[in-house]
């Protein structure tokens, strides 16, 4: 029997944390992720099942926190659902049994690298990275945007905290872009 040891998106055994000036960037390896897309004409059934299972299905451009499931909108009738990896490594299977055939569910955990950004004010950093009007957006705003040619999801958890989901294979390039911008600003 194999006992495979995972690597993080940055190619290490442990999640990476880097700091520069007021900024802390933390790689998150403890998040399980799956996409949930409503089947055609099954939105009502999905809403009902999701409510029962405690899976939030927030409005467009928003993120809704919960336990164990949080979620953000990614496309019409489609969401990314987050849960703790330790308890929900098989998030796709768990959601399938909870939501039945009202949704198409696909595991996304390892398709992305997650970075949490923390600084008293993230706006000066993010204005160097993407075209999102961060200070004007409410907490809970979730959007897809581009950072140094990479398509990422940006979730505003506050003026001082945000999460970025970037393509996993470009984790190093994305971290480098964030660090470079941080050096440019601070």
């Amino acid at each position, binding site marked *: 029997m194999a006992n495979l040891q995972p690597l993080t998106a940055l190619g290490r055994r442990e999640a990476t944390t880097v700091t520069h000036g007021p900024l802390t960037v933390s790689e998150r390896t403890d998040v399980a992720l799956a996409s949930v897309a409503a089947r055609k004409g099954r939105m009502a059934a999905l809403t009902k099942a999701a409510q029962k299972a405690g899976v939030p299905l927030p409005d*467009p*451009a928003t993120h809704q926190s919960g336990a164990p499931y949080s979620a953000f*909108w*990614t*496309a*019409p009738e489609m969401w990314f659902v987050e849960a703790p990896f330790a308890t929900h490594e098989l998030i796709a299977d768990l959601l399938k049994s909870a939501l039945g055939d009202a949704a198409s569910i696909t595991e996304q955990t390892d398709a992305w690298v997650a970075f949490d950004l923390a600084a008293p004010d993230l706006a000066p950093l993010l204005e160097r990275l993407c*075209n999102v009007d961060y200070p004007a957006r409410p907490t809970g705003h979730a*959007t*897809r*945007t*581009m950072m140094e040619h990479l*398509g990422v999801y940006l979730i505003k958890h506050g003026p001082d905290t945000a999460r970025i989901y970037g393509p996993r294979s470009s984790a190093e390039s994305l971290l480098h872009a964030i660090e470079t911008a941080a050096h440019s600003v601070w």
Partner: protein
Amino acid sequence: MIIHHPILGPRDAQEFVYLGDASLIDRPDGMTAGVEVFHDYLYNRTNPAGEHQELWYHEQGDRSWLVVTRNTVTHEITKVELARDVARSRGRTK
């Protein structure tokens, strides 16, 4: 340019990929239409100096295809719709 996405509001055109005339929605049925009809569908387009309906894909966004009504002379955008809705209104089904 700024495209006012029907769901997401104003978004920079840099996030989109342009395809072309929205008449591409009106694909003939391959089981009944022949080469001539498909040829017209694929190659014969109007090229107006003025209002033009065109397809844009929000690739760095929510992956919606949009029908954007844009003046090709002034770049003024007067209408933006989800292509899915336009397709349905034009009778497209399965």
